[in-house]
């Protein structure tokens, strides 16, 4: 458990899981009244440092397999497994002020187009999407995280951008997804793992099982994630 | 009280009524162009406040009534809601605490006025250098103010005010920080400058020699009120308050006269005077040389004799000034020989005597 409170289960979750894991917490606690789940969300990189520096956490859920593999290699987490996927979409603000009808429009220099930075997963995937579609996009910003990218599209600062399906789902009144061209299908994989140092291995196990259970998957699907 | 001074068109006239923090000032001043007025008063009498009101620095408390006119231009008139900012009054000020600009050299301090009124830097510096030379401190030109002694700083402050070629000059105790040698030297410079300066000059001081030596008119201010005005001579000859009398080197007492006796107002003592017809409030003047001192009770013609103690023995040039304690504080001048023969020393007992004819009485 976290700190001195041994009944609670501390879950470190990537920021894009905020809403899904809020619901997850409630559902799990209903199912396991004796366990108090605490969710601490932060950027993937912050979670990585926290785990390395011995954060008193029990479960880690990230938005990318690479950092999780690194943690596993270092022996800091055990048995990472995929629990959700997310797909890339082309998002435009509601009303589509930039008149982006298809993927080719992304190469229009007059449009404001954003993607994630190549160093972060959604940027990696965005590049895969663009390569697959064969578009030489005129990029105005490479946002360090997908939330800030989705936010900029939502307020209309950007005319279009490549974000996750879950981002569009979480602000349906502001974002519209434009279908990707055929044959372009890039999926992000979300891994979850037990922290090696956990003092509640059983609780951690149970939480992960819950996430991967039908009930957990339903919550994730509801938030726009693809199944494991 | 005092003579009314008509002010010439080019002069300065100020009417100031204000109360702040329980201290109220009620003073009217007029200074003719080309003449120097001294504002003489004890510490805390309100001299600096009057200067602040004239120069436009004072934060005016509500209910103040100020009007200031200089060279026929009304600079301020609270009833007409007129107010001129300090920089447009063209009144030069030398401050009690010099207030040189710490981040400029002495030369640039003095050049500040000319530069502010439009001269170019080189020209302003040239003017400044000549003012500094006039005050005989050219070697200080390149120093920073914090490298000056108190007296040096004050000289530079005077040069700075003069260099701005103001219409009127206000000086707040400009000589207070100077040593005796520098003081008479700066006093000479000041007088030359004041004399060649065509506007009105107001000199604030608590030192009567400054007032008497440099001023054409003197205003005495006590506790926020002008208590006497006149030429230095008039003030010296007929002091109107004990403070002025002390300044003029004489003794003054207020009292109630009846049948040739005067019961002093502030002291538990009665003097005998010659004029038996006088009745009511009177002012008595006793010149310090008119009093004789004796080791024992003198048996002479003197009508006023009393026993007292010596408070202070001060050699003043060729005479020695003795200050007597109760019942009547009095300054007495004697010769150094008398001090020795009478064994006068602070706290020692002594008899004092003065003839009734030596006490001059005027109706108050």
């Amino acid at each position: 458990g976290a700190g001195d409170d041994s009944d609670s289960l501390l879950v470190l979750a990537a920021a894009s899981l905020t809403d899904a894991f809020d619901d997850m917490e409630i559902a799990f606690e209903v199912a396991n009244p004796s366990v108090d789940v605490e969710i601490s969300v932060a950027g993937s990189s912050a979670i990585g440092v926290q785990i390395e520096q011995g954060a008193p956490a029990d479960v880690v859920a990230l938005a990318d397999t690479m950092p999780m593999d690194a943690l596993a290699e270092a022996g800091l987490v055990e048995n990472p497994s995929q629990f959700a996927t997310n797909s890339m979409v082309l998002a435009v603000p509601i009303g589509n002020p930039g008149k982006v009808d298809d993927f080719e429009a992304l190469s229009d220099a007059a449009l404001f187009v954003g993607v994630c930075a190549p160093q972060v997963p959604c940027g990696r995937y965005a590049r895969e999407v663009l390569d697959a579609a064969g578009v030489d996009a005129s990029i105005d910003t490479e946002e360090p995280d997908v939330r800030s990218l989705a936010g900029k599209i939502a307020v209309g600062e950007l005319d279009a951008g490549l974000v996750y399906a879950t981002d569009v789902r979480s602000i349906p009144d502001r974002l519209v997804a434009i279908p990707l061209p055929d044959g372009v299908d890039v999926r992000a994989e979300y891994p979850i793992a037990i922290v090696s140092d956990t003092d509640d291995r059983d609780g951690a196990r149970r939480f992960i099982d819950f996430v991967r259970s039908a009930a957990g998957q339903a919550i994730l699907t509801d938030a726009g994630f693809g199944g494991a | 009280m005092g003579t009314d001074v008509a002010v010439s068109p080019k002069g300065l006239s100020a009417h100031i009524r204000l109360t702040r923090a329980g201290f109220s000032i009620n003073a009217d001043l007029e200074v003719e162009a080309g003449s120097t007025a001294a504002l003489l008063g004890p510490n805390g009498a309100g001299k600096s406040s009057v200067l602040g009101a004239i120069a436009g620095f004072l934060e005016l408390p509500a209910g103040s009534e100020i009007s200031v006119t200089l060279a026929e231009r009304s600079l301020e008139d609270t009833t007409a809601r007129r107010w001129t900012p300090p920089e447009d009054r063209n009144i030069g000020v030398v401050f009690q605490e010099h207030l040189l600009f710490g981040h400029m050299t002495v030369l640039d301090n003095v050049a500040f006025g000319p530069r502010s009124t439009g001269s170019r830097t080189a020209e302003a510096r040239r003017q400044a250098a000549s003012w500094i030379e006039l005050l005989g401190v050219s070697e200080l030109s390149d120093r920073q103010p914090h490298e000056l002694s108190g007296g040096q700083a004050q000289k530079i402050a005077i040069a700075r005010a003069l260099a701005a070629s103001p219409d009127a000059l206000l000086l707040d105790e400009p000589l207070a920080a100077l040593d005796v040698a520098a003081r008479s030297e700066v006093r000479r410079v000041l007088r030359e400058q004041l004399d060649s300066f065509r506007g009105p000059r107001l000199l604030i001081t608590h030192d009567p020699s400054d007032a008497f030596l440099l001023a054409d008119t003197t205003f005495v201010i006590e506790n926020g009120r002008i208590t006497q005005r006149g030429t230095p001579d008039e003030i010296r000859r007929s002091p109107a308050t004990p403070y002025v009398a002390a300044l003029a080197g004489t003794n003054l007492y207020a009292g109630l006269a009846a049948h040739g006796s005067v019961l002093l107002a502030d002291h538990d003592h009665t003097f005998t005077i010659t004029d038996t017809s006088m009745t009511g409030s009177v002012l008595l003047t006793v010149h310090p040389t008119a009093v004789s001192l004796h080791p024992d009770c003198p048996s002479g013609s003197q009508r006023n004799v009393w026993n007292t103690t010596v408070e202070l023995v001060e050699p003043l040039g060729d005479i020695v000034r003795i200050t007597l304690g109760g019942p009547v504080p009095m300054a007495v001048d004697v010769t150094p020989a008398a001090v020795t023969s009478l064994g006068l020393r602070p706290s020692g007992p002594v008899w004092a005597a003065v003839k009734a004819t030596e006490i001059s009485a005027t109706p108050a």
Partner: protein
Amino acid sequence: MRRPPAILLVLAVIGAALFVLPLIGLLGVTPWTDLGSLLTDDVVVDALRLSLITSVAAALCAAVLGVPLAWTLSRVEFRGRSLLRAVVTLPLVLPPVVGGAALLFALGRRGAVGEPLANATGFVLPFSTWGVILANTFVAMPFLVITVEGALSSADRRPEAAAASLGASPLTVFRRVTLPMIAPSLRAGIVLAWARALGEFGATVTFAGNLQGRTQTLPLAVFVSLDANRDAAIAISLLMVVVSVVVLVALRGRWWERTSP
């Protein structure tokens, strides 16, 4: 009665606009109708309580440690003084996330100092309210140190000499003469440190995590709401603005106006 110079006023208005326009922008997108329900959510109430506690505690810690540090930097001559002076500005320059990571490297459970500390006492800073206070102190203290050191260095030293001649020990001089003399700057420094601590996000989330009721302060609550519940995020931001403006305006005259003539 003074006419302020026009050029100064024009520049001042432009400068003020830089602060006022974003505030107006924020007010323009504020969900006024839902404000009540958004702000009474217990996430927000917990975060507000925690934010007030930790920001005040951090401001006090910053004062208790920062004033002596400022005094030492200004009054004691030692090798490396200007290096230390520069290091004090570290939290200003370092992106807060990196600052939080650096704190973890030093004071985390595996940190250079944190590990022996945890082994000896069992006391773990990260993911505790103490950790929030530490992270807040770390980012807020430079403000206080710099403000106070500036005041100390430009203060008139002569009253201190006068106090010493009256028999006052250096500590008494510090307490009874130096501190009161720089009181306006000290107050300004504390207010600055408090305001910075109130808004602190990056170092806190990295060092102390983001746990409702324990480490989730208002800025962290804004962060978790940004995605799905933008209205809540804006409402909380507005709450922070209101809290700080209310505090600063209430302290007006006492903390901001000059007290000595």
